[in-house]
């Protein structure tokens, strides 16, 4: 299979860039750099991966975990400097508040959070998620369901209230 052309790279950035940044944000504070590195790596491979999107998620995950470790080491050395909090979502409609969703998602365990992000915003199958996360398909599905349960518990009250008020 031929290498990635600039057109394909641009389309991948447009369609999956935001979700990839959200995915990388689960582990590190500089997700844009991680996604950019992954896209550059994809551009430099001579043989195009069979599933470029899943390949990107895998590379972003590995790179974000590595960068996150470095950031935590650096943060331990440098004393508490307030880092700016980036918004994970842009407000779309009134079904869910973006800040509440960010807080609820951030409170989830990491293995549930990565499955939810990869499934809902990345559009990956559970097979692909299992391969990326290093677990089986059923484990990925179980983590997904558990994560959604946790989000529903955290967001449920406000979400139901909003829906009730709206209806």
């Amino acid at each position: 299979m031929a290498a990635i052309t600039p057109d394909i790279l641009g389309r991948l950035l447009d369609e999956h860039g935001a979700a990839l940044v959200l995915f990388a944000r689960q582990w590190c504070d500089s997700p844009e750099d991680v996604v950019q590195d992954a896209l550059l790596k994809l551009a430099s491979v001579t043989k195009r991966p069979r599933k470029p999107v899943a390949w990107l998620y895998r590379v972003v995950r590995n790179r974000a975990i590595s960068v996150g470790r470095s950031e935590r080491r650096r943060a331990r050395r440098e004393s508490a400097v307030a880092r700016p909090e980036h918004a994970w979502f842009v407000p779309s409609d009134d079904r869910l508040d973006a800040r509440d969703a960010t807080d609820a998602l951030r409170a989830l365990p990491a293995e549930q959070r990565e499955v939810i992000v990869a499934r809902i915003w990345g559009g990956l199958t559970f097979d692909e998620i299992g391969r990326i996360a290093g677990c089986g398909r059923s484990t990925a599905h179980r983590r997904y369901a558990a994560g959604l349960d946790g989000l529903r518990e955290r967001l449920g009250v406000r979400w139901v209230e909003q829906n009730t008020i709206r209806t």
Partner: protein
Amino acid sequence: MGGTEHDSNLNEIEQALASLRPAGPDINRDALMFRAGRAAAGAGFCLRIGTTVAVALLAALAGAGGMWLASPPSADRAGRVSVATPVLRVVELAPAAGATVRPARAPSSGEYLALRNRVLVDGADALPGLSPGSGPPPHDSAGDIWRDLRVQPLLPWTALLEERSTTS
């Protein structure tokens, strides 16, 4: 029933989450494309260089192998040591013209004893074929043995004897 309600709740929260859009990436698209082009060109250049080097190495190895096969074998290459000149030389005497070659026959005990007695009396000159100027008798059975093959040892002591006889 409860399971269905639970699933519908999950689907609702799933749909609600999917309605949220992740914040747009703060990535400079033009800079990314420029760097991607450089990375792709660099990868292609490295691939071409690697291919060229590999082909050159293979060609050099093939040429060296061909030259090695075409060169004459040497002791080092064959892993063998040349053998010194043979110690014994076998001299085959040509049969006399018109004579028919007969297979050698072992002398009988009577002939052998007669030859032995002659040698004891006359010395080595009595041996058939060794006496100067006299060939072996044409039908002498003992002469057949000496006529067919004679073995000359080329040992150092024979050379010394020859030198001594010539100097004296």
